[in-house]
């Protein structure tokens, strides 16, 4: 018998009588103002929220705040004025020198400031991790209170890779001292866009 | 109501005052109390060391001594928890079940069965309460800091009825003292360190007395306090609830 068959047969023999799945949690915490909560939590975990109402505002922000950065890439065509052209589709290692990447998120979650991003919004999977700084654009109406609502949005969508990103990369491995910028981005800006 | 007084072996032999106070307090509250003279030990030290299978003698004796009472009350949360969780009998399991149901730690008996709402006691001192783990987490005598749930404490509720007693707050209100039965010698270094840290929390917050509903924790902390030549004393909660200092 190969290991697969052996393991499966031992499980069959040893697993207890079937118990049912629990009912879904009733009334998980809702925030009166999810966007405000999102901003507070993001601030607590080392990120910054910038409210905007147009892509011009984002471009202006990039021009003023990131003027000294050499390599700025984006998956948003609306930001083409301030970002590199023709960067897509290269070997992932070649993105090692990206200073700032600006991507879009499907939605955000207020309770933990996490943003849901799937592969097609990244261009390449490594982009949100390898850049020195990350900026994410999310629509104000797409901020949900909690993770239950979040997975309600993800539902049975199909993706090759998807990730929740909450703030900049961090570590507290040395004596519990929090340091931002472990292997991934050293900081994170979230543009919360209200198109109205 | 006829209560059988269950006095753990080490209280019988080392801390008779805790047992006397328990008896007098119950009598003061109008309860008829008897002490079955042939009792020994509940068997916990053996069971916690992995020898539960050797406790049948202790169990049978316990049932013989206590089966007839309406309630069994003891000034030790730990021993009560052991009886509640592990007392069995090969011949008389029905009696064992009955004993497990009616055994109470003293303070929970006072708050839950007698529903005591006032005490005629005075103890004009600063007191730190040690929440003994088996009583707190096992018998749920106090809310536990790990849980997101409303706070309560049966021992503290009673201590608040004692005139002129001042409770001190602790940095870690429900950390274990490190006694742990045979753990106290099998893991001597950790046990002592835990005890020193627990005692320090009380001392640093100005406690003159450390009290608990479990004498075993207090015995461990007393051993440390005395080695440190500290003026701080330990006192079983029954002795405070029965105190009549003027």
């Amino acid at each position, binding site marked *: 018998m190969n290991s697969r068959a052996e393991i499966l047969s031992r499980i069959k023999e040893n697993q207890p009588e079937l118990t049912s799945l629990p009912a879904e*949690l009733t009334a998980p915490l809702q925030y009166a103002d999810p966007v405000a909560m999102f901003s507070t939590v993001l601030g607590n975990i080392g990120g910054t929220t910038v409210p905007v109402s147009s892509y011009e505002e984002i471009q202006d922000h990039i021009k003023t705040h990131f003027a000294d950065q050499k390599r700025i890439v984006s998956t948003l065509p609306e930001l083409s004025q301030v970002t590199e052209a023709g960067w897509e589709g290269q070997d992932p290692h070649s993105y090692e020198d990206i200073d700032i990447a600006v991507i879009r998120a499907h939605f955000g979650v207020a*309770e933990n400031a996490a943003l849901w991003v799937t592969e097609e919004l990244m261009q390449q999977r490594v982009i949100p991790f390898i850049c020195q700084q990350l900026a994410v654009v999310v629509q104000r109406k797409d901020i949900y209170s909690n993770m239950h609502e979040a997975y309600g949005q993800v539902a049975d969508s199909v993706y090759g890779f998807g990730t929740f990103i909450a703030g900049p990369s961090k570590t507290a491995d040395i004596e519990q001292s929090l340091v931002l910028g472990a292997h991934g981005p050293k900081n994170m800006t979230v543009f919360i866009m209200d198109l109205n | 109501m006829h209560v059988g007084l269950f006095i753990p072996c080490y209280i019988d*032999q080392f801390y008779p005052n805790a047992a006397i106070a328990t008896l007098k307090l119950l009598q003061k509250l109008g309860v008829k109390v008897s002490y079955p003279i042939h009792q020994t030990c509940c068997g916990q030290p053996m069971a916690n060391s992995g020898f539960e299978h050797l406790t049948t003698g202790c169990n049978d004796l316990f049932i013989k001594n206590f089966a007839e009472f309406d309630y069994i009350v003891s000034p030790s949360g730990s021993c009560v928890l052991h009886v509640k969780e592990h007392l069995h009998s090969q011949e008389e399991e029905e009696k064992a079940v009955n004993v497990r149901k009616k055994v109470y730690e003293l303070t929970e008996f006072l708050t839950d069965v007698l529903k005591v709402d006032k005490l005629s006691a005075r103890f004009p001192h600063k007191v730190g309460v040690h929440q003994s783990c088996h009583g707190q987490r096992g018998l749920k005598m106090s809310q536990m800091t790990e849980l997101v749930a409303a706070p309560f404490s049966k021992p503290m509720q009673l201590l608040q009825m004692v005139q002129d007693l001042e409770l001190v707050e602790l940095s870690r209100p429900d950390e274990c003292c490190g006694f742990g039965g045979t753990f106290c010698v099998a893991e001597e270094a950790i046990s002592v360190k835990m005890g020193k840290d627990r005692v320090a929390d009380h001392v640093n917050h100005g406690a003159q007395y450390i009290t608990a509903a479990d004498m075993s924790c207090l015995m461990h902390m007393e051993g440390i306090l005395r080695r440190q030549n500290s003026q701080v004393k330990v006192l079983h909660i029954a002795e405070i609830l029965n105190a009549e200092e003027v």
Partner: protein
Amino acid sequence: MNTGTKDHAGLADIFNEDEARVDWHDETLWFVRAKRDKAAHTLPEWEALRENASKIKDNVLSNLHDYLLQFEAKAQQNGITVHWAADAEEHNQIVHSILKAQGVSRIVKSKSMLTEECHLNEHLQKSGIEVIDTDLGERIVQLAEEPPSHIVLPCIHKKKEEIGELFHEHLGTPKGESDPQFLTAAARVHLREKFLTRKAAITGVNFAIAETGEFVVCTNEGNADMGAHLADVHIACMGIEKIIPKRKHLSVFLRLLARSATGQPITTYSSHFNKPRAGQEMHLILVDNGRTRQLGRADFRNSLKCIRCGACMNTCPVYRRSGGHSYHTAIAGPIGSILAPNLDMKEYADLPFASTLCGSCTNVCPVKINIHEQLYKWRQVIVKEGYADTKKALAMKAMDFTLSSPFLYKTAGKAGRWVIKNAPFMVNNKLNAWYKQRDMPEPPKQSFSEWYKKNNNE
């Protein structure tokens, strides 16, 4: 317990030689416990969440067979190659053979307690494959040639000055530099070079979804993603108990995991791997290594519900004062002490006794494993299987004999206070271990029984 040279008590003695360091270790971990409490209290539904998670995991254990088959089929459809390993040895061989087929001799690895349990690094290194651990804490202990002392905070036992010294020696940082910010920046540069040059990456798995065939890896540093998204080959290693039924169940577990572990609302990255990226090979290894045996032990099977948050370690008053290495197993602390005896009962016979049974571990556990009750039950099993120290066994028999006989008890008591010689705190194989640092209780003039007989003639 006599389990050879490395028992918990002996190792804890060594750790306690430096009391200031014990205080520092205790305070550092208590700080993490306090952060966990604060995070838990932000959610009024915390206890309901724990209950929900526990029930989901109960269902998983009761239907593991079918969930694994469902997961495997979906994962294969998604383009993931699925392997099955009966034990640590087979797991290590599978990893090795994948690397060999690719001609890879240098790899990066993000945190995976399973690979620690299987001693994968040693195995690969013996075969001439270089493994670089990329989690900062793991890299630090790797440079120090030590195992991790904590499943979430691998180098929590190390002071920054010691880490500075290690980095000076291995990474060429200035001597005496111990600032965490500076050292982390140095590690970032050092490890970025590894990410960019290694062709294969190993990651662990936090959750695998039966319904979709995807698996989720949670990190704060981003090291799992940096490794996986740059490598040609991604190998993910998981214990078979990491399965959860549906994608939506992640909402429950991701709310609990980081809050329980470090007090964060979620880890920085919760990455869902569904398919390999174009041109990449993705392998997943399902490992048993004793888990099916534990599944068959009714009293202990729910230890398999563990999501490896480490909360039980942070809250454990014994762990905080003895350090992770005193448990001499890959997974330290209370949860390790109920998992390890399943792997080797003789080797780990001491661990279930390294506890006061205070119960705090059970209360912080996000999936409600009754850890302290299992510690008690393991003690019974270990004694019955004959792994208890014999002197203790004899003393215990004598104790039952005396305690079950009122006559002997009272006689012995009178003849020099029976309890003084035989009470729990005196019965043991270490000479007067109570008295070393504690005074004995002062024997009173009379016992309570004697007093009662005089004063209460009923």
